[in-house]
């Protein structure tokens, strides 16, 4: 298990996180946006796990919390999206500006 250097894992985590951020900034589709957010969360999870041999078991414990929160978030987020879709027939983020001034 010690074959893979830490830097590889962290680099992968950073790349995944950057892809997630880029997706959130660039994409318009709400579901894709959502998936990008998940991507960012999992990039963080990867960093936690990769660092846990050096920093202790807390990192791995924290990953479980993140997974639980992400699951709850996914449930609520998807419910909102279904509700929005029923009204708007669209999931384009361009249309989601109702609360603007």
């Amino acid at each position, binding site marked *: 298990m010690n074959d893979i250097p830490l830097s590889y894992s962290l680099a992968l985590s950073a790349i995944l996180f950057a892809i997630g*951020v880029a997706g*959130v*900034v*660039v*994409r*318009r589709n709400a579901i894709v*946006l959502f998936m990008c957010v998940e991507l960012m969360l999992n990039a963080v999870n990867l960093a936690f796990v990769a660092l846990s041999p050096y920093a202790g078991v807390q990192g791995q414990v924290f990953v479980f919390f993140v997974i639980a929160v992400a699951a709850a978030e996914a449930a609520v987020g998807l419910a909102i999206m279904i509700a929005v879709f029923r009204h708007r027939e669209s999931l384009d*983020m*361009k249309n*989601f*500006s*109702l*609360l*603007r*001034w």
Partner: protein
Amino acid sequence: MLLLQEAASAAVHAAGAAEFPPGKPWLGTEFHPVMPWLIVALPLLGFVLNGALSIIAARRALPKLPPVGDPSYDHHDDEPAVAHAAAPAHAYASVGAGDASEPSEQEGHDAGTAPHPVDAAHAHDVHDAHGHDDHAHDAHDDHAPAGPKPFTHLLPSFIAPGVMLAAFGVAVANFLRMKAAAPHAPWVHSYWDWMSVGDLHVGAALQLDQLSILMALVVTGVGALIHVFSVGYMKEDPGYPRYMAYLNLFCFFMLTLVLGASYPVMFVGWEGVGLCSYLLIGFWFKEKANADAGKKAFIVNRIGDFGFLVAMFLLFWNVGALDFVGVNEALEGSILPFAGPVITWIALFFFLGACGKSAQIPLYTWLPDAMAGPTPVSALIHAATMVTAGVYLVARSNVIFGLAPAAALVVAIVGALTALFAASIGLKQWDIKKVLAYSTVSQLGFMFAAVGMGAYASGIFHLMTHAFFKACLFLGSGAVIHAMHHALHSTHKPADAQDMRNMGGLRKYLPITFVTMAVSTLAIAGVPPFAGFFSKDEIVGAAWHGAAGGSPLSEFVFAGIPGSRWMLAIGVVLSIAAFMTAFYMGRMMLYTFFGANRTGDEERKHLHERDWTLKLPLIVLGLLAVVGGLVNVEENVPLVKSFNFFHQGEALHRWLDPVVEPGVRAAAEHARHIPPVDPEWWPIALAVAIGLGGLALAWVLLSRKPLGDAATEPAYQGGVEKALYNKWYVDEAYDAAVVKPVQGLSRGFARFDMGVLDWLVDMFGRLSQMFGVAFGRLQTGQLNTYAFVLVVGVLIVLGSFVAL
């Protein structure tokens, strides 16, 4: 003036040495007052009860509102409201198509005044409409209310005079005890601690001494009579309970004023009577002129009150006490130098306060306008009691004025000038109440001349006799106006019920009013042996006495002229004023009660005296105007002195001596030597000649030419008469000198406020709005944009960490 020798020079020697050893307070048998707080509390009780009744009456007069939550009103909103407005339902059934037998203040008065004949006269009356109180009689005999009176209009008739009579009884009981005990020191009792700040300790304290009990007797006695008169005069007015509540409240404050043991307590009464004066002048506030007159009185009095306050501050700062006993003790201990600037300013500021309350030059203009109130109010507040508060203040502060001879001379000079000035205006007024109003100002000037010259007891004596005969004259004029109003109302003739040109020959129709007013006229004109003769003669005599060098002020040089010269001038001015007094009073009596009647043929049938409540106070006051002077008759006058209450000559002087003696002594101690002045008889002869001469001249000059009524007789002929009729244009001058500049200044400030300050405030608001709109554009509502900005921000923060 015989007693003046005693009052001035002998106060130190004779009185001080023989009976009261100097420096050691002489004590008679101990004086135990009988519940003196009742004198003050009883009118307050009357105010509370009558006030409650007036609130009940006002509530009943409101149209009935639907009960809250009544479902039946939710469905048809309009209908019930109309029904209730049309029929204000209460017990006091009103007949006569909207005539004012309705006791409701809201509707009754409106309904009653609208078709009023005298109101029509207001509109095209040549002179100003102030001082016409015709509204007391809206409901009259021809349209008497059919139903029984509601209790709100019945009870005040018993409560208001009742509490005053009871207070008078308590005052009499205390007076008798004091007379028996003859205490030399005042009785002071603090009921509770009112203010305690630093060195300032003011208790809610009453003081009973010879001066305050005398004032309390006058206030409660004359007050009770005027309350009785008010029952007859005002009982048909829709605002009757309110009127009686105000009148009781006034008596409460007036008694607080005279019985208070310190300047702050006195100031409470001082302000309170001013408030009640304002409320009662503007009692018929629905007419703008009346409301304006009330405001004028209140505002002019504020100027005087400012003086009172400054004097109190100065007194506390320099003397350290505000109660009368403490102040007198400190001043007699020479805490302030004789005739120094501080004591002079204190005295002058107190006099400014007195000028406001007692209508002296330059603050007298409010008093003639105050005639807009009901006539009993004019009698009680603006003749007998409140306006004499200034005289009481000076007499009460006799030590201060004794130590400030310059201020005392100013008081005397202003008083004498006011006496002359007001008397001259009184010569050419047609409104019967205006004549009496200027007469009051003039007589107050006499009182101030007296107290200014150090003849405190003479001033208080004139205050007392003036309360009798002037209250009688005012109530008599009220009875005349009452009768005139009913007569004019019977045919709805649009004539002024207060204009003497519409009267004439009334002695046949109003015999009791005529006799009592005639007696009072003789009294005010100074015809012996009526009350005014003794008191006025004493004042003028004090001036002659001082002119001969017999007063401590005689040798005091003021403005480069010795005091004796000033006093000579004061004596001459007062004599002329007394002559004018006799003349205008003779003119008033002549035009009102003699000659042919000018009211109108049809109206004349309705001229008669009505209620016993209107007659009884007149009779009592008339009697007092006859015998009131005997209380202070001089020692040398044979026989008469045995008839007065005290069975001794100069009784009032002896009575007041413990109170005013410190002031006289303070002045006399610093005078070099007061030569004894022999009493002379020519001033008395002169006084009699002036009184009779003025009346006779009026008779001879004015009875020759028959007078037309107000419609035909011109108000004035020639330049002097025009100036007199227009009150020397003083109101106009004040208007130009004070009111107009203040209004101009106010307009300037208003323009600055609206143009600059408001603009600035508006600009701040508009600027924020502009910023809001500008920054609002940044909010696109696009999640991607926000995320992008977030990332950029994070990158910048991270980048800055790396860079550092």
